């Protein structure tokens, strides 16, 4: 039921993820941020087993930071993606992590990039990618409307189209989404798309 998708535009990469934390039939919370800011110019959108998701992405984040302190320069997006994939691969035949990841980053030399890393350590560099049941709808939408070199406005429009499609066609569609963007100015939150806000506590 978790939906994560992303695409690369002109000088930026954008990722969107649903924000529901679900346990069987219970929705724990509907504002769970599943897109972690890995470092100043990288985003990691993760979906899957919630314990693994947090543990694994935090582990990657701290190792990326350690690399930067040790070497004085940050990892490139490609290097971070390969490192992440390597960790998943090492754990796969012993103690696998059930986490699917879209890693978006911006490097000064090579521009924006998006990496598709699934839980069995597949690594692909892609222009657009998606995970979860929502991917049936978002990938189809992106296949239809994506072109290389989209502007931020065009990309957001496409993201909104995908969210609309997921909301209307997926049986247990997540109500809220968060959108984050990474470009030359860094990685940051772009917007939320909420159709259900947590109810205010009624005053006595």
């Amino acid at each position, binding site marked *: 039921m978790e939906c994560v998708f992303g695409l690369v535009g002109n000088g930026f990469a954008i990722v969107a993820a649903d924000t529901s934390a679900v346990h069987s039939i219970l929705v724990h919370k509907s504002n769970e941020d599943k897109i972690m800011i890995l470092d100043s110019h990288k985003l990691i959108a993760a979906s899957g087993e919630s314990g693994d998701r947090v543990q694994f992405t*935090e582990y990657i984040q*701290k*190792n990326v*930071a*350690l690399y930067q*302190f*040790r070497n004085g320069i940050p990892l490139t997006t490609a290097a971070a993606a390969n490192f992440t994939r390597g960790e998943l691969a090492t754990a796969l035949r012993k103690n696998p992590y059930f986490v699917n990841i879209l890693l978006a980053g911006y490097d000064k030399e090579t521009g924006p990039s998006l990496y598709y890393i699934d839980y069995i350590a597949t690594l692909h560099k892609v222009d657009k990618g998606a995970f979860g049941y929502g991917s049936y709808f978002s990938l189809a939408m992106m296949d239809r409307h994506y072109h290389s070199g989209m502007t931020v406005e065009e990309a957001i429009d496409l993201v909104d189209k995908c969210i609309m499609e997921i909301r209307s066609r997926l049986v247990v569609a997540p109500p809220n989404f968060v959108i984050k963007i990474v470009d030359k100015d860094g990685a940051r939150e772009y917007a939320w798309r909420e159709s259900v806000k947590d109810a205010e506590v009624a005053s006595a």
Partner: protein
Amino acid sequence: MARYDRAITVFSPDGHLFQVEYALEAVRKGNAAVGVRGTDIVVLGVEKKSTAKLQDSRTVRKIVNLDDHIALACAGLKADARVLINRARIECQSHRLTVEDPVTVEYITRYIAGLQQKYTQSGGVRPFGLSTLIVGFDPYTGIPSLYQTDPSGTFSAWKANATGRNSNSIREFLEKNYKETSGQETIKLAIRALLEVVESGGKNIEVAVMTKEHGLRQLDEAEIDAIAAEIEAEKAAAEAAKKAPPKET
């Protein structure tokens, strides 16, 4: 006495651990390092022995950061320093991962000192031949700190301290001239202290400054030269003032 330097774990009859004392000797031979704590800033300065002409001096960094808010300078065996610094950097990230909190300066100092102590009580290893000066800001209160560790594994907090060559003279100078300062004044005090034992000039000292907002910043040669020039001017003015009064009588 020769029999008691062998195994590190052996005390001498008069209660010395000679290997640790020899490690302290190694520190005393290392280049001078000074640290000064201000109210909103901490400054580290290290003597730079003249770099060989063909050497790329950018690869010889004597003041390093352990985390966004912690920096370290040391005197002694630089190769040993690499090992300790690496372990400390790992510990900084490990701490963040397990307790979701950045380390405090005291925590990481205690960790480094603990590591140094371990190597004074194990078989087949020698102590780390370096003393460190660790500076940083508390991640929540923003209070600056300066700590020092030595090969024996002891550590304590200081307002200002020096280690390495001629550290006694630098410390005497600091004891005489220390007062609570902030910003540029603290930087000047650190450089003045270091210039007591080092030839003047930006080429011979490396200075780094840490603030809560901007983290660690290495001062470039031009900046150091400018401050050193200011210090020289102030010294000259003070000398002139000393000579002037007799004329006024």
